[in-house]
């Protein structure tokens, strides 16, 4: 049962009430204060110290990330060993500000041309970008079909106007779309990796995205389908190269096999078929 001795013990001990402070477990014994000693998970929690929960993410974005979590992990939250991707970190950002351009009577714009500002300050230097997408939530299958026929153009720049940005920071390209995870809501992804890569490589942590989506007018319809009314999120698929991040593939042994298998003489790696190779006495 879930109420094992461990959980029950933690619950009745009272030591964790009212709130456990993981940073207190990491303090140097001399009383010094050094958050640099904290592993990444505790650094995340360190940033919350004594504070309110703070901003809450968009519910659709949270839904998407929960779905992604279920796809990537086992029931116990362990990364699936059968995964094919190389990234060990995925970050989803919502636009911190939005400035809509005047539509100007443009009837083909599915989503009014907008400048989206993404603050990517949470991306650490050890997190290397492998892929990035703009993610639109689409409510209905019909809208998704309509959205799939849309074309879009993108401009990604660093902070400031394109004229103030360093040469080469402003990029534009036609975007291709693909359907992605989930059924309700459905998702439309636009790959922006080639545009974002040079900005992140140049340590730009604030990125302005100008996106213009145009959709074909359906026959007999006075206006084109408008499937993309909500501003998109920006998702970064990253490879964290720090020591705390797992490397390569691994397998999670069952409890019984964990006891039965013996490491090799160095005690580092389990001996393949270890017991079978031991001489019997």
């Amino acid at each position, binding site marked *: 049962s879930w109420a094992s001795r461990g959980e029950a013990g933690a619950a009745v001990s009272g030591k964790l009430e009212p709130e456990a402070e993981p940073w207190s477990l990491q303090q140097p014994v001399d009383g010094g204060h050094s958050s640099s000693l904290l592993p*990444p998970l505790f650094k995340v929690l360190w940033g919350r110290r004594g504070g309110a929960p703070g901003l809450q993410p968009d519910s659709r974005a949270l839904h998407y990330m929960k779905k992604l979590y279920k796809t990537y992990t086992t029931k116990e939250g362990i990364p699936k060993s059968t995964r094919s991707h190389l990234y060990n970190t995925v970050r989803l950002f919502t636009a911190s500000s939005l400035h809509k351009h005047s539509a100007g009577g443009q009837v083909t714009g599915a989503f009014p041309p907008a400048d989206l500002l993404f603050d990517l300050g949470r991306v650490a230097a050890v997190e290397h970008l492998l892929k990035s997408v703009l993610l639109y939530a689409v409510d209905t299958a019909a809208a998704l079909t309509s959205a799939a026929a849309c074309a879009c153009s993108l401009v990604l720049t660093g902070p400031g106007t394109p004229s103030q940005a360093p040469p080469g920071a402003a990029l534009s390209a036609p975007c291709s779309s693909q359907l992605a995870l989930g059924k309700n809501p459905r998702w439309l992804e636009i790959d922006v990796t080639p545009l974002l890569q040079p900005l992140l490589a140049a340590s730009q942590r604030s990125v302005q995205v100008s996106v213009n989506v145009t959709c074909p007018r359906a026959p007999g319809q006075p206006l084109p389908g408008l499937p993309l009314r909500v501003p998109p999120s920006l998702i970064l698929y990253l490879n964290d190269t720090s020591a705390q991040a797992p490397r390569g593939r691994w397998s999670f042994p069952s409890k019984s096999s964990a006891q039965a298998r013996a490491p090799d003489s160095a005690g580092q790696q389990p001996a393949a078929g270890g017991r079978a190779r031991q001489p019997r006495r």
Partner: protein
Amino acid sequence: GRESPGRTAQRPRGAAPPSLGAYLSRLLSPHGECQLHDFRLSFRQLRWDRWIVAPQRYNPRFCQGACPRAVRHRYGSPLHTLVQNIICEKLDASVPRPSCVPAAYAPLSVLTIEPDASIAYKEYDNMIATRCTCR
């Protein structure tokens, strides 16, 4: 006194036969010896559930138990462990006996809400003990 497969013939009618896994477990890990134990916790207990969206529960497991005098091969202990045992018994009792500690770990994926309301999926290494050893 250990149960052997031959004893299954003597068990009462209707009783479930002992599983091979349970039999092997008892054979390989005598009671009280160094082995993995579960410790299931909920992030709600720590009040971390405001930031950690998933998993809601976590079993880091831990190693506990006595290290046998003659450390068996299944623990994969280095020769140093045997020497330390001899020192403790024969020369100086203040030298501690070898300890039962994790020998291998598995990672854990964590979904967190960051202070800026962004959402992060990260995999952290060495979050779950998967094997114990005597060192």
